[in-house]
């Protein structure tokens, strides 16, 4: 579904990821891990055509994203970032309905089918009860789910999320990632999310893409745990990763 072919990404003149090759399939929840500033967001932005690729190709369903029209791309990939949308008088329903933009006419009028899809998206994300609330009254967790409903309304094969759990408390982090896994498995979508939650990623994701500067390593979760990459990457003077317990522990 999403194919990276020898891509090189840079931030300014600094190369973040070099010659990365990976394939992310439908029906799969992929966690993107890496230390701060290693290019997780840059990679997600590149795949959703928000950022430039230094070298190499990104293919979505076989076609390079550079050759796709904005509308085509918007029908293939949906994107959710960390930005809190705080608009006065905007209802959750209207926000999700904006996700129909790649399908509606020049005025953005919703047909009966569009309304069905908006309602189904709200239901899938578990926020149908919030439909009439304005988004500025929602909690961070509720808001994040509404943004996911909007991505669902875009009816794409892939959904990319940049640190969707960052403002949530611990139970909500697990709830949200469980939702992402269900969407990947039941709706047969390719869901790729970046996160710093190692334990959540290892317990819920089907595969892990790890930015090990400047390489990108993509392995099924079980293999990634035993591969030794995580130990090396998350090792510091004070903490270490223990593959047996899948947890980060303090050195004593």
């Amino acid at each position: 579904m999403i194919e990276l072919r020898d891509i090189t990404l840079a931030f300014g003149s600094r190369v973040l990821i070099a010659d990365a090759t990976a394939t992310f399939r439908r029906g799969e929840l992929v966690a993107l891990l890496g230390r701060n500033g290693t290019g997780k967001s840059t990679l997600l932005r590149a795949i959703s055509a928000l950022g430039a690729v230094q070298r190499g190709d990104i293919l979505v369903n076989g076609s390079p994203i550079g050759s796709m029209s904005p509308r085509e791309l918007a029908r293939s990939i949906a994107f959710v970032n960390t930005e809190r949308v705080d608009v006065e008088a905007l209802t959750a329903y209207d926000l999700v309905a904006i996700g129909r933009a790649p399908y509606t006419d020049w005025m953005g009028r919703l047909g009966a089918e569009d309304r069905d899809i908006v309602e189904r998206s709200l239901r899938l994300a578990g926020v149908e009860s919030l439909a009439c609330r304005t988004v500025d009254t929602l909690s961070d967790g509720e808001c994040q789910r509404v943004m996911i409903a909007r991505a669902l309304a875009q009816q794409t094969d892939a959904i990319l999320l940049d640190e969707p759990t960052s403002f949530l408390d611990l139970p909500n982090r697990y709830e949200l990632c469980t939702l992402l896994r269900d969407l990947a498995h039941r709706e047969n979508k390719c869901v790729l999310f970046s996160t710093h939650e190692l334990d959540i990623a290892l317990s819920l994701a089907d595969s892990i893409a790890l930015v090990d500067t400047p390489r990108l390593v993509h392995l099924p979760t079980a293999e990634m745990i035993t591969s030794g990459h995580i130990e090396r990457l998350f090792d510091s003077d004070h903490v270490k990763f223990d593959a047996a317990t899948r947890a980060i522990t303090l050195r004593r």
Partner: protein
Amino acid sequence: MNQPSNIARSLLFVALTAGAVALAIADLLIGTTSVSIGQVWSVLCGATEDASLETIVLRMRLPKVLVALFAGMALSASGLQMQTLFRNPLAGPYVLGVNSGASLGVALFTLATPMMGLASASWLHSFGVTGVAWIGSAAILLLVMSLSRRVRNINTILIIGMMLSSAISALVGILQYMGTEESLKAFVVWTMGSVSTVTIDELWVLIPVVVVGLVLAIVVIKPLNMLLLGESYARTMGLNVARSRAIIFISTTLLAGTVTAFCGPIGFIGLAMPHLARITFRTADHRVLMPAAMLWGAVSMLFCTVACDVVARQGVMLPVNTITSLLGIPVIIYVVLRNSHRQ
């Protein structure tokens, strides 16, 4: 919940339209000479022999009503576009420097040309205050647009616009300091704003240009809805952000630039009326908000001219700018207070 029904919205639209019509009629009737509704009707039907009555209604009052109507719609529609584009409730039609560009043009025209001995040059005078104001605002907008082509972050553009405005008002200050008393007065009169100085010939320019700006404002309704979520989201939903931004900028120059050129800077209509539309219609959807903001703009501007007319009967000629400020500022304070309660 809280969402007003479609019936409530339709009623609100009907009420606002009726209000605009009533105020327009009042504007035709009220003035230093009283005119009855029957007299207005006979003039409009061409059934009167009274030449002075015809002059008052057709040549003086009707242009004023039309100017107020289009100026109100234009300022409010451009203010709404700026607020959504910059995602800032305090953005108005003048944030890009349209206003200061116009004032620079007028300042150069009224203050600097006499200094340079160009005042009698006839080619300059054919532009008139309106022409130079329009050229000034278009020039500043072109400058902001060309600078913004390399700028990703929309708030950077906001800062560039504000800094340009400040730089220009400093320049205008220098010109004012150096200008003669007579030319200074001409400049100050322009800054006070007026809807009654526009002639019928000028209407033939003002109305078509504003209509094009309003049509562009309607064209960008869907892009504006997408931009509510920010530029990244808009882009990933298939929006060509650069093109939409350009259309919004052009629409704003045509609307705010033209109105400012003809009527002088009219404050607070463009800033406050989109908020009134949001508060009364309780929606962020531009398919409702855009026509609602236009209607509120028309109603408020007509109201301000009627207020001027009423005061004028007592022999006091107030600049319309003072009334629009007194009307708009409470709305802004209310919105700001409400936002601070929300957080």
